[in-house]
């Protein structure tokens, strides 16, 4: 008896030509890959857009118009990410045999091959990471130790970068494949050397697999998009949220989870407005006695759900005027919350100037419930939900 040699082990590993399905081929890979590339571009751009809302740079004039913009960009981000999952699975399936191509001989060819494999490893790893972490995050499931926001952002650059490298490497193959009918075996795919894709009624064709991938992507979107697209609410049976909640609106974080129950239910609550070191205080009855405005505005969460509601309260600019703040002020809003992130938010002057930016006291005609931010909360047009600070205790004008 002898020990197995490298050759013996190598014989046990399948070769690309061992895979039976005739539906694989460059025509399919290039088409599904193009759709996936477009989806990734949409996800990347809308994702960058979302990060800019959290930390707006000086050069970008983010403001309250258009009212529904963030709702649309973030809804698109999440819907497109979800639709990408069937596409990437079919794309990876279509090239899976290539994983078993044997390394070429010669140091130069070996180096090129190693570099290409490394770039594909980065692409596949970062792509799966982006889709998986995003998918879990919208269900508020965090089985990891990294910071979702910072890591999803950094890896996005790795994903889009390795995608560009992949397109650069494959461009001639992609052009050739897209220029030919999907069923033609005109490529360098070793699986095609032994199989044709001619009409065999018994097995899947490339065209069927491609249409199946697109149908599955469309279904994935349709069955989840109702958390942000109102008319799909009933159809989207797999959406993380059905759009319902107390006072007709879902909740992202409860008062209990934010550690705000005690302070928010204290009947001796007063709101502090600080202008140039001078503090003005108002209790809730005094706030309710001020001129009230009612506006229809959406809560648009970074997790991809959104819903419009009718909000009633005092315009922040009216409050500031009353407290003697100069026009065009930027304000810092502090919450009573004691747990979790986003206990403060900055309202740039552009938002403060808009009379629809409210310190809301009521939601859909009723006093805010504790989980919606009682005694008062910020609601402004075109902002991510986490910046719509709940359980407001203090508004400070920043000079």
């Amino acid at each position, binding site marked *: 008896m002898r020990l197995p040699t490298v050759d013996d082990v190598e014989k046990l590993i399948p070769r690309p030509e061992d*895979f*039976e*399905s005739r*539906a694989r081929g460059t025509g399919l890979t290039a088409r599904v890959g193009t759709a996936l590339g477009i989806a990734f571009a949409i996800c990347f751009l809308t994702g960058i857009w979302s990060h800019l809302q959290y930390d707006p740079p000086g050069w970008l004039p983010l403001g309250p118009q258009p009212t529904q913009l963030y709702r649309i960009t973030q809804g698109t981000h999440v819907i497109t990410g979800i639709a990408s*999952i069937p596409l990437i*699975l*079919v794309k990876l*399936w279509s090239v*899976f045999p290539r*994983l078993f191509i044997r390394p070429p001989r010669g140091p130069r060819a070996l180096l090129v091959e190693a570099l290409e494999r490394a770039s594909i*490893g980065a692409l*596949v*790893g*970062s*792509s799966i*990471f982006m889709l*998986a972490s995003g*998918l879990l995050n*919208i*269900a*508020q*499931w965090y089985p*990891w*130790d*990294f*910071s979702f926001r*910072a*890591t999803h*952002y*950094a*890896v996005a*650059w*790795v994903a889009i*970068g390795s995608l*560009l*490298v992949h397109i*650069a*490497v494959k*461009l001639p193959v992609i052009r050739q494949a897209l220029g030919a009918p999907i069923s033609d075996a005109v490529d360098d795919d070793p699986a095609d050397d032994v199989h044709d894709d001619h009409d065999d*009624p*018994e*097995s*899947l064709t490339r065209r*069927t*697999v491609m249409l199946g*991938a697109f149908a*599955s992507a469309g*279904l*994935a979107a349709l069955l989840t998009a109702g958390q942000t697209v109102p008319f799909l609410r009933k159809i989207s*049976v*797999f959406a*993380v*949220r*059905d759009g*319902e909640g*107390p006072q007709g609106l*879902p909740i992202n*974080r409860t008062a209990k*989870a934010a550690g705000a129950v005690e302070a928010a239910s204290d009947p001796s609550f007063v709101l502090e407005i600080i202008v140039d070191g001078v503090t003005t205080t108002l209790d809730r009855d005094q706030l309710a006695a001020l001129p009230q405005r009612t506006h229809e505005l959406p809560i648009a969460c970074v997790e991809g759900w959104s819903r419009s509601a009718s909000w009633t309260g005092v315009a922040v600019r009216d409050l500031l005027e009353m407290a003697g703040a100069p026009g065009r002020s930027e304000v810092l809003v502090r919450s009573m919350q004691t747990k979790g992130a986003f206990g403060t938010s900055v309202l740039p002057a552009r938002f403060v100037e808009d009379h629809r930016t409210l310190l809301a006291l009521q939601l859909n005609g009723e006093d805010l419930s504790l*989980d919606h931010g009682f005694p008062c909360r910020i609601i402004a047009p075109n902002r991510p939900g986490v910046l719509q600070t709940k359980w407001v205790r203090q508004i400070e004008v920043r000079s």
Partner: protein
Amino acid sequence: MRAVRAALLAAGVAAGLWGVWLMRDFTSDRLVSAGTWLAGGIVLHDAVLAPLTVAIGVVAVRLLPGYFRAPMGLAFLVWATLTIVFVPVLSGQGGKPDNDTILNRPYVESWLVMTALLLVAAAAVGLLRRSRATRAAAPDPK
């Protein structure tokens, strides 16, 4: 085309390195966790999901009568990819116990209905194809 490819390559390498640079301040715990997820996705796909799919295909081709292979293959594609999309809502994980406005739908029931619909549709298409083929092959009744 050379210039386009060179530009794509340069932009891609720059964007990728920028992403790595953004992680420079991550603590080692966070890096290990992120690295586990990055590599874990590849391992899960290449070592589990893809071989499982191939194995299912090999078995299905040998077990299923001819006319059912294509419709069942298509139904499997849709079923498997959608099931992976719905893993978080089906898992019973996620959400918070004090918030009933998230994960508040009967997801498992919907998934069972989806599974049954796909199976029935694929079986119906298979039967239709078979009856069409036998009719075409049968001698003219006249």
